[in-house]
């Protein structure tokens, strides 16, 4: 074994000062990139997220309108009307047809996938804190957070520049902030707004709904955060292609990456 480090996804990030330990990229053909926990939780989360997205979209079609506050129904003015066809003939959509009702399996799948996502997320968070994954790989160094650094990083992303060799072994500051936002802001908000819609859950924890401003506000925010997560997913996948699809996928599947492959020389 070329390394006995428990986490091998630390690297020589030029852009991130916090990852500067051990700055030489070794000559080994395939270097350890992502730990097993990171890889397994990444793909389970991917699976759960896609299941939640499909089933959630299906559920929205039974009432493709959003409201603010506690109550909202077809007798109230929506805050946002998606103008989509609906699977219920009680919703005035303007379309001359009604979609088939898919809410039975959609709701079953949604909650089962939610349990999977939450369980996986807890495992990942526990590992992230205990094994130092967050500290080493995600929390940016203070020096990375200057406007100049961040705008430079953003410009390189917007030019679809392939990352330098060093960046293939670490995350750039913008990437770190995006991942932190997803892990510590968007996912927790998703769980909170989801639970705030459950009348069983809010009977025991009424503040989950009250603090948000009501059950319908929770539903609208749940939808808004979904859009943000889908935006993240799109950018994430585009960036994987920009950075070298084969090498990045290999790293997230096998844990190892070729230091010379798929990287701008």
């Amino acid at each position, binding site marked *: 074994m070329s390394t006995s480090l428990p986490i091998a996804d630390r690297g020589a990030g030029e852009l991130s000062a916090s990852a500067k330990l051990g700055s030489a990229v070794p000559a080994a053909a395939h270097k350890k990139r992502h730990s097993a926990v990171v890889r397994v939780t990444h793909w389970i989360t991917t699976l759960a997220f896609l299941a939640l997205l499909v089933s959630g979209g299906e559920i929205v079609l039974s*009432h493709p309108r959003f409201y603010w506050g506690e109550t909202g*129904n077809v007798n*109230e003015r929506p805050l946002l009307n998606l103008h989509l066809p609906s699977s219920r003939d009680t919703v005035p959509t303007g379309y001359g047809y009604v979609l088939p009702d898919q*809410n*039975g399996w959609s709701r079953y*799948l949604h909650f089962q996938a939610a349990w999977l996502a939450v369980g996986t997320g807890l495992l990942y968070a526990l590992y992230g804190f205990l094994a130092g994954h967050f500290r080493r790989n995600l929390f940016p160094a203070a020096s990375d957070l200057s406007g100049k650094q961040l705008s430079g990083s953003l410009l390189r992303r917007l030019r679809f520049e392939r990352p330098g060799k060093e960046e293939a072994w670490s995350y750039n500051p913008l990437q770190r902030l995006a991942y932190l936002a997803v892990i510590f802001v968007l996912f927790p908000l998703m769980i909170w707004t989801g639970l705030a*819609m459950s*009348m069983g*859950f*809010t009977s025991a924890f009424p503040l989950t709904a009250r603090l948000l401003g009501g059950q319908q506000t929770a539903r609208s925010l749940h939808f808004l955060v979904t859009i943000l997560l889908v935006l993240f997913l799109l950018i994430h996948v585009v960036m994987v292609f920009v950075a070298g699809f084969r090498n990045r996928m290999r790293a997230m599947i096998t844990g190892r990456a070729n230091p010379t492959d798929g990287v701008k020389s």
Partner: protein
Amino acid sequence: MSHIPRRRFVTTGLAAVAGASGIAVAAKVAQHRGLIPPDGGGLYGPGETLTYAAQRLLTRHSMAREFSRSEISGNPFANEVDPLGDQFKQLQSAGFVDWRVTVDGMALRPASFSVGEIRSFPSSTQITMIGCEEGWTYIAEWTGAPLSYILDRVGALPQVRYVVYRSIQPDWWESIDMADALHPQTLLAHGMNGKELPVPFGGPLRLRLPRQLGYKNVKYITRLTLTDNLKPFGKGRGGAASDSGYAWYAGI
């Protein structure tokens, strides 16, 4: 160099064994404590069981959120029902005086009550939200006889585990566990917003269960059956909704 992989192998093995036996023990305890829902098998059984068990552990005695009078929806949405049959229309034209609710099954004193009798029972009033699985909600003031009072009156046997309730509408029935059946907010509702419960909202009698979704709040109740086993009812999944692919427990 090799001690870390070996240690890892041992810890992973121990974790796997502990995890598997943990799940087995949890399943036994859940079964014993009645935390497995009637639709707890099959593809979505694990998620459904986790949801039901977790909510039962957290919410057995918790009260659905109540609202202030000013939060009552001015224009509530009744949702549609299948066309009401001739039997319903006959009873309706007579002002529901002959509408009866039969209570049978595991009771010492099975009985049949008229709407008038149920209106004369001790009543409870709540301002609660009704939410549909589709996503919409409204708030109303509901008045009715607590189901726990009716169960008490007919002498429900201690081994009763579920109450099955039926509508006058064909194939419209659901069931709840005793945590919900004995819950103080579970009503056989006969009033809404200070008036008699209007027909579109389930009048003359609707099972009001504010901690669960609208589809468990069955309209036009004619029969309550006390049982310790849901298998003989329908397809054995505890309700018309769960027989047609919806979750039996609708607290989420």
